[in-house]
């Protein structure tokens, strides 16, 4: 059984092999992020300060001209406002709906598999197809909702939801809510599962009723987690593009023109990539400014626990 032990540490390998493993494992990710995020950022900064179109970039340094023009001469600031409004509203609506649905589902013992599938389908649907499905329902000619309203006599002429200034944005929000509420349900369901039962049971033994337990015991406990979900949803909603593209193309007028769509139009319809780059940078800054308070509030709640 005895064997010469020294031989086994005669190797020249050293603690450095850990270093090299760390690097070789992480480097591809760093390179990937550099290509997908780092390089675009640098490129955008360069584009934003030059006159550049899609065919020929960097035609000359123009200082802040692109930024000035984006703010004064285009619909950009309006589109940023739309994007923020859209993100905050849909996220809040979806969080409320999703949380309530998750609470209900957490009380249901059987049939979970079927409910789960139904809930999962909207989430999995490609956003372009979500747009098509909702277009079919809301269309003035042959839309199902108009069909019902006409048949019941509630309206005499079909409503053009996507052509109406007041209704177009709510229509997009409806489609977005259809797609993303399921994600909130799944996440909130898991959050509720993670709440320790003993605390709720202790509250019940203290004589508190279920509703009261939810508002005074459960909700404060899960508030930081809910805020993370809200943050995630706001970030995702700020990226919305597909639904606007398929449902309204930013219209009627500029009623549903959100920042991502405005930037896309500037770059790939008007080919002014310099201007689009300036818009993109300003939008990126806006995204951080909008999400920062949520992050701070989340950290604050997390600390209090």
């Amino acid at each position, binding site marked *: 059984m005895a064997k010469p032990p020294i031989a086994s540490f005669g190797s020249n390998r050293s603690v450095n092999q850990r270093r090299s493993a760390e690097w070789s494992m992480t480097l591809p*990710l760093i390179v990937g992020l550099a290509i997908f*995020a780092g390089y675009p950022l640098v490129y955008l900064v360069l584009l934003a300060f030059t006159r550049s179109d899609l065919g020929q970039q960097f035609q000359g340094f123009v200082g802040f001209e692109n930024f000035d023009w984006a703010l004064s001469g285009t619909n950009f600031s309006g589109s940023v406002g739309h994007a923020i409004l859209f993100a905050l509203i849909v996220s809040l609506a979806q969080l409320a709906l999703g949380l309530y649905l998750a609470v209900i589902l957490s009380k249901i013992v059987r049939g979970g598999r079927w409910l789960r599938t139904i809930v999962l389908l909207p989430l999995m649907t490609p956003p372009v197809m979500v747009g098509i499905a909702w277009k079919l329902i809301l269309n003035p000619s042959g839309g*199902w909702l108009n069909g019902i309203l006409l048949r019941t006599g509630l309206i005499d002429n079909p409503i053009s939801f996507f052509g109406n200034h007041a209704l177009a944005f709510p229509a997009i929000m409806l489609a977005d809510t259809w797609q993303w509420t399921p994600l909130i349900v799944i996440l909130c369901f898991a959050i509720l599962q993670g709440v320790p039962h003993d605390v709720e049971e202790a509250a019940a033994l203290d004589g508190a009723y279920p509703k009261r337990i939810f508002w005074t015991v459960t909700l404060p406990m899960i508030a930081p987690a809910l805020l993370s979900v809200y943050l995630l949803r706001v970030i995702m909603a700020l990226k919305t593009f597909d639904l606007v593209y398929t449902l309204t193309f930013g219209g009627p007028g500029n009623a549903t023109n959100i920042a991502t769509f405005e930037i896309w139009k500037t770059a790939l319809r008007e080919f002014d990539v310099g201007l689009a780059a300036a818009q993109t940078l300003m939008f990126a800054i806006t995204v951080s400014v909008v999400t920062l308070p949520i992050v701070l509030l989340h950290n604050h709640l997390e600390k209090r626990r």
Partner: protein
Amino acid sequence: MTVSAQDTRTDRLIRFVFLAAMLIFFALPIIYLFSTSFKTPDDVLQGRLLPEAATLKNYPNAFAHVPVLRMIWNSIAVALLSGVITLVIAVPATYATIKLSAFRKTVPNITLASYAAPPIIALIPLFYLLQTANLMDSVLGLALVHGLMNLPVAFWLLKSFVNDIPAEIDEAAWIDGAGYWHTLFAVILPLIFPGILATALICIILSYNEFLFASALTFSEASRTITVGMSLFQGERLVNFGQMAAASFTGMVPIYLIAFLFQKHLVGGLTQGSIK
């Protein structure tokens, strides 16, 4: 649980009605899309839930009008390829960050920040990059972009799965003489397999569903994906809704198949990744 026994009858009724309404809300657009795919143009204009005289013609006509199957195939190819790219990069990096504490702060922060950035930021630069690399309008080019695009998502999903493996398991393998890559492959990979599967599925779905990059980076039949193809229906003046619905539904089948077959993994992956 005794707690719910105290709920009043009205509470339960409200809950039931709300649940039923939400389920109908979730199911109806899909049902209506499916039903429309069997409607004649006249039937479509009626705006009823079910077709009056169901026709199967929309499917062959749509396939003849737009190369639906080819585009679905492109989408699947891009999705699978991008899924492989994402996992090959993300799995070792997640392991190194969590278990070897490599760049423990920087890497998670950078990935999070790059997820928060709207993808439109990367669109124009990547457009030029693919042009330079001669990968414009190709399945490989789009797969690369999607593969990189999903890195933050994959990292955050995998993170919690790797975190769940006790540190001693790795340490036992190291003391057993296994190097770090060997430990990753022989010990960690089998243990986080459910997490890898869930992550792969989610990344594949995200790629399949993606539209912005696909629309700017693919345009010929050889590489155009189904989401881009479906948007083409939009531009036409006289949209044949029946055909559009047929093409849409066909395009959704692969994703719904995944959702149906792997719902447990998907739900598990989504919750594990985001809650912990």
